[in-house]
């Protein structure tokens, strides 16, 4: 299954490490009381601190610290009880202070790991190097006016977590799985909403290649600011192939920052000026070091929700789900909750199957998330109850389900309204069978001569006669008895 690029000189593998910027879910910014809400009018969520007015000072938002610790715990990482905010100095028009407050020397979270489930059923740990907190910059808009640039400082000072991954990723697919898993963990924890299209999660990807079997790493290129899982995967593929071609044509990869152009399907170097900074990091003298107690960390640990890995294990153990189904269901916290609502007191495998196949097909088709599902978990549960108590057949249940999708109604109401109740009345079914046997002597002969397939034809006829409402089990039993004579 390994991802290999077949070059002219042999097989190559790709080595990737991701740096993910995740915007922390908090009411207020990291160092000021301004709101963090997305989509407000430009420059309406800017405090004196965010605008770096003279004499203004940052004050740490304790909730952001808590969110970072929570995330660190979710990444099974070491929480550093002592961390320090540093200033990263550079000039840009959307960076009012002239420095970004970040954590270089003493990040709040140390090493951890994220487990990804590969399609072949195995799983793999992707190492986390560190997680540090920092402020976001404002937004520059260069396309509003031919001569001027506009600045929106709403985002200035919003709290980000930068999660630096180890170079453990070996394929675009693993990168995609890693990002999705991170996003899932964030959402379970409620520490980042993970909405890449709104920019609340962005990734920089370090890519290098090496011959299969080669030790050590070759020079890497950094692909900046990728804002979708798809782009990350495409960018890695494109960049890895570029590097292979370069090596094979006698060139060398230079360490540089590159941009991925998704429209052209290529990466190209950023202008040196755009990144050649000496950031002159030093501890921010306006802030005290962040000193946490073990009790504080434990308190947060105790309040952690069940995370996807644990939930998956539980779904397998408690509900007897396959690892695959369990993995699919826990990928989204809401899906797992939906599942549990449906499965509780019912057949969990049946519940899983309905959700992962029938419901997901509908949601995909309509482009909806599970919490926007037209069929509520409660109603899907009731539908399964109707199957279980024999009110409707599995096949009829599908019809009922699609009516539920269209109307959002309770399945029992639909069954009543449409007269879809299953016919289990043996007398009624027997009469239909008797009529069929009497009128179709040729088919009866074929069955008795050993052609079992003819049975299916009879079932079809019975179902047609009952508009699909005949109980298949009853039909089967009666039909065989009667056909055999």
């Amino acid at each position: 299954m390994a991802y290999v690029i077949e070059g002219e000189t042999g097989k190559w593998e790709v080595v990737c490490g991701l740096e993910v910027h995740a915007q922390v879910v908090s009411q207020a910014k990291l160092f000021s009381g301004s709101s963090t809400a997305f989509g407000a009018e430009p420059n309406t969520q800017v405090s004196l601190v965010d605008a770096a007015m003279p004499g203004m000072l940052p004050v740490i938002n304790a909730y952001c610290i808590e969110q970072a610790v929570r995330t660190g715990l979710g990444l099974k990482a070491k929480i550093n009880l002592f961390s320090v905010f540093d200033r990263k100095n550079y000039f840009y028009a959307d960076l009012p202070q002239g420095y970004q407050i970040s954590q270089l020397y003493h990040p709040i979270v140390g090493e951890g790991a994220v487990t990804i489930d590969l399609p072949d059923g195995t799983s793999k740990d992707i190492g986390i190097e560190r997680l540090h907190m920092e402020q976001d910059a404002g937004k520059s808009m260069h396309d509003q006016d031919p001569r001027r640039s506009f600045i929106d400082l709403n985002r200035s000072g919003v709290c980000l977590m930068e999660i630096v991954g180890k170079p453990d990723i070996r394929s675009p697919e693993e990168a995609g799985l890693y990002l999705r898993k991170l996003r899932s963990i964030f959402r379970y924890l409620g520490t980042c909403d993970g909405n890449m299209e709104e920019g609340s999660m962005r990734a920089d990807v370090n890519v290098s290649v090496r011959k299969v079997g080669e030790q050590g790493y070759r020079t890497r290129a950094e692909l900046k600011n990728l804002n979708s899982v798809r782009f990350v995967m495409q960018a890695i593929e494109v960049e890895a192939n570029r590097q292979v071609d370069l090596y094979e044509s006698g060139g060398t990869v230079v360490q540089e920052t590159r941009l991925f152009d998704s429209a052209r399907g290529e990466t190209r170097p950023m202008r040196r000026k755009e990144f050649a900074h000496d950031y002159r990091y030093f501890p921010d003298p306006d802030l005290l070091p962040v000193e946490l107690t073990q009790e504080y960390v434990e308190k947060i640990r105790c309040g952690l929700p069940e995370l996807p890995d644990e939930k998956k294990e539980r779904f397998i153990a408690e509900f007897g789900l396959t690892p695959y189904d369990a993995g699919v269901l826990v990928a989204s916290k809401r899906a797992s909750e939906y599942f549990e609502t449906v499965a509780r007191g019912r057949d969990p495998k049946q519940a899983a199957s309905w959700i992962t196949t029938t419901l997901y097909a509908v949601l995909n088709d309509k482009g909806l998330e599970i919490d926007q599902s037209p069929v509520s978990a409660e109603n899907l549960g009731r539908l399964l109850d109707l199957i279980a108590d024999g009110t409707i057949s599995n096949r009829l249940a599908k019809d009922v389900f699609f009516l539920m999708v269209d109307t959002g109604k309770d399945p029992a109401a639909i069954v009543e309204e449409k007269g879809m109740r299953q016919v289990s009345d043996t007398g009624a079914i027997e009469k239909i069978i008797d009529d069929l046997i009497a009128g179709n002597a040729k088919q009866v002969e074929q069955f008795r001569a050993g052609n079992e397939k003819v049975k299916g034809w009879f079932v079809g006829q019975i179902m047609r006669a009952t508009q699909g409402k005949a109980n298949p089990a009853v039909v089967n039993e009666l039909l065989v008895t009667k056909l055999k004579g």
Partner: protein
Amino acid sequence: MTTDLTRMTIAEAAAGLGRGDFSALELTEAHIAAIEKARALNCFITETPDIARERARASDGRRAKGETRGPLDGIPIAVKDLFCTEGVLTTAASHILDGFKPPYESTVSAKLRDAGAVMLGKANLDQFAMGSSNTTSHYGPVKNPWRGSAGKDLVPGGSSGGSAAAVAARIVMGATGTDTGGSIRQPAAFCGIAGIKPTYGRCSRWGIVAFASSLDQAGPMARTVRDCALMLTPMCGHDPRDSTSAPIETPDFAAAPGGSVKGLKIGIPAEYRMDGMSGEIAALWEQGAQWLREAGAEIVEVSLPHTRYALATYYIIAPAEASSNLARYDGVRYGLRVPGESLDEMYENTRGQGFGAEVRRRILIGTYVLSAGYYDAYYKKAQRVRALIARDFEKAFEAVDALLTPTAPTPAFGIGEKSDDPITMYLNDVFTVPTSLAGLPGLSVPAGLGAQGLPLGLQVIGRPFDEETVLRVGEVLEQAAGFSALPEFVTEG
């Protein structure tokens, strides 16, 4: 009558206001008139007589209703133009803050305002508080009201030079200063007044234009130690908007002076007897020790072995922090903007023209010491030395209750002197910088006149958050010195 009203101490004026001898408005008018006559000294960047009259009237109104807010209610003061004042031009004495009127009031100036103090104007200073002579101001140098026997125009010291000169010239009763490496104490010494830099963390830095965040501290400047204590109490207090402000109770500092120093141990740091100290300053220092001995204190020699590294350490840390703190003055949002063809060119034009030479020099030094490859050798090492300097003091304070040193190695010098040699200029702060690096309280007390008829100051240094002992020792020195000389500007005009 006018003369009398400007010659009083704050304590005397408060008593006079209390007795109804005069109104706050009369007191304010007397000082406004004095300021108008003293414009040659260039103490103010912005005079605010209308605000002063309004506040004075409000003070009188409160007093009439029996709602006076304490000893500062109705007292005319100057506010160093490093404190942001709501709706009032705030410049840091720099061209780069042209036209900047903050929509907010610094915590310290707000607390003084709320205590009833009447702001007469924004005092001149060295640009961004960088200097020891008040000659780096974009608004021109301040003249010391003392001219001495040579009759020259002298510097008032810096960076709080406008504040010190205004207090000494009797055109305000007190002033706020800020002290990063000696900017309250050295000008206080040069102008013959008292000034205290409290412990780092006592006063909120919120709303004070930052120079070096880990060193900047606000403090009062006044004509007596008691007046400093009266001003200091309302200036202090924990401010949740400044993470470095200490969550610690503020004592009533006004109760500290007047106490006895009997039995106190006062340390004389051996390392402060350095080459180049003038004989008269060495003599004054010995005299100060003798006064304290006579008052019942025990004088003990102590060692602060890392003193000689203090100045070098300071001139790495302070510029490093400044280079970053001043990055926000970029022409984008407020103050001066000098256009350019590109964003970078706009930065270069704005910052090149907006900052004065000394500010540019310190930004360059600071940028250099933080640069990749130099950080460990300069900034990191300086931080380690800073810790050693602080430990020197800690050790000394195991044996003594306070330290006595000169405030500055020389009396005030002529305007323009030392300006071509930054190192000589930086040496002015040799006795004050170690205290700043250690974050300790330091008070300068006028203790006598030198041979040229110029005031000389003694510095009392205390344990962290022990301003009370510092003030107590300071007042004993003040009493013993009986310093009553008036600057030539006051006696001769």
